[in-house]
């Protein structure tokens, strides 16, 4: 792998930047691999990366139906944080935040990680109690969460002029989560792809997997693609909202429903908000990108959905919530919107396990899975390589549903 450094930049500049090697190869698709990862999204790429790095499994093909970095890794709000609720969840997300912080150096690829912090703006006493409880649980697991006074809040977020004493929902308090960050989603995809390629793994764009193949012994045998059958003793499904569509091709049902979660951005404006602001009572969250656009997210569409656009009703609700707290934003023009499919389990917690089809692994149910990418890949690679769940993920196997041992997670902004 050619390293990215100042010396290399100068060297290639002398050749007018015509001598850079491609960051990854485009090898022909073989008919057999040790592991197939379906989906070159964040979780698929991170899994292939840690399979090679931690476990020496390099004969891996990552199959992507679209293009690299074009799926859900580009369809989120790049929020990285660990302010969750459950004892089982928080250590996982603390690990994920730490891995993200080290990613630029580890992958030699600038992910533009900006530790800007996140402020939760609280407008109901029920939510206030929830956040105080969360603060104590987070204290136990090494995540930071502290209460801000109202003058502090108004000073940190000057644009937040709504929610006064005469508002329908006056602001009661706020909590700061300093570890929260944003980074560049493309860089995460490209950085992982380059590192996987350097270690011998293969990334294949555009062959969609149409069907999983099961052998006569019941084990997974491989996958079917328009470019032919590819065989492998281990197959990882990391396809977010389309998990059930794929697993049903081998008769496997999973407790997942697919939803569409949307976001939209405003025109770029001058630096205005330097933290991520989350308003769970109003039902909106936002941050300002490095370009100056306000990135705004709201609740999911009602009902299951495989559409990737925003519903008018959801959009209006989110904008109304936004304007109730940031009335000045009324003058902003909105530029574009997007949606991403995600699947949700009955307890809103992820599922990462080997399924009833031996050799077939799923990582699914990620509601806000962007923040979980590095740790999700680390734990899944461990499971695939050793057959045992990683300690950080042992509470999130399919086994928990057998005894309805739910990990009810309320740590997600909009999973209401």
């Amino acid at each position, binding site marked *: 792998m050619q390293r990215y450094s100042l010396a290399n930049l100068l060297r290639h500049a002398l050749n007018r930047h015509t001598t850079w090697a491609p960051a990854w190869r485009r090898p022909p698709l073989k008919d057999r691999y040790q592991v197939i990862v379906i989906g070159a999204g964040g979780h698929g790429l991170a899994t292939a990366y840690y399979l090679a790095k931690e476990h020496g499994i390099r004969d891996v093909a990552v199959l992507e139906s679209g293009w690299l970095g074009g799926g859900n890794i580009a369809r989120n709000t790049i929020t990285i944080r660990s302010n969750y609720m459950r004892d089982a969840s928080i250590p996982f997300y603390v690990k994920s935040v730490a891995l993200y912080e080290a990613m630029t150096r580890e992958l030699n690829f600038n992910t533009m990680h900006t530790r800007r912090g996140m402020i939760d703006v609280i407008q109901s006493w029920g939510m206030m109690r929830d956040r105080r409880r969360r603060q104590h649980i987070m204290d136990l697991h090494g995540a930071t969460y502290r209460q801000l006074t109202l003058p502090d809040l108004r000073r940190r977020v000057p644009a937040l002029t709504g929610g006064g004493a005469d508002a329908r929902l006056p602001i009661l308090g706020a909590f700061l989560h300093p570890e929260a960050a944003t980074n560049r989603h493309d860089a995460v995809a490209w950085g992982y792809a380059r590192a996987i390629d350097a270690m011998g793994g293969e990334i294949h764009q555009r062959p969609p997997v149409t069907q999983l193949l099961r052998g006569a012994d019941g084990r997974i045998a491989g996958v079917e693609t328009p470019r032919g059958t590819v065989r492998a003793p281990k197959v990882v499904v990391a396809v977010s909202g389309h998990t059930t569509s794929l697993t049903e091709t081998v008769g496997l049902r999973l407790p997942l429903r697919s939803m569409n979660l949307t976001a939209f951005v405003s025109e770029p404006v001058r630096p205005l908000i330097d933290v991520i602001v989350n308003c769970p009572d109003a039902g909106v969250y936002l941050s300002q990108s490095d370009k100056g656009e306000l990135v705004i997210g709201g609740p999911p569409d009602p009902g*299951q959905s*495989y559409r990737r656009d925003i*519903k008018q009703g959801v959009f209006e609700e989110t904008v109304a919530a936004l304007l109730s707290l940031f009335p000045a934003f009324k003058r902003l023009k909105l530029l574009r919107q997007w949606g991403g499919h995600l699947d949700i*389990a009955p307890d809103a917690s992820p599922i990462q396990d080997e399924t009833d089809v031996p050799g077939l692994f799923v990582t699914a149910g990620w509601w806000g899975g962007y923040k979980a990418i590095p740790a999700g890949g680390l734990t899944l690679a461990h499971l695939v390589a050793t057959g045992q769940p990683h300690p950080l993920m042992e509470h999130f196997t399919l086994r928990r549903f057998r005894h309805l041992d739910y990990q009810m997670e309320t740590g997600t902004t909009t999973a209401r």
Partner: protein
Amino acid sequence: MLLIPCPFCGPRDESEFICGGPVRPPRPDPAQTSDADWTDWLIQAPNPVGPVQEHWWHARGCGVWLTLWRDTRSHEIVAGASDDG
């Protein structure tokens, strides 16, 4: 935005309704069924790429629960097997 046919109020705007999720198979008697089948009924829901039968509640209207078939790819209400729920 959907225009949902309410049996009492006629076609009404989606904002008057709350989605009650997909229609599941009939509820088994927990005393008569195995633990595995019972948990299976509790946790599994249809998740098709295409028409799905759903419960909707006319919460900001007459309060009736109705079912309809909606295509998850387009959000369009489509004709389905049975619309009485």
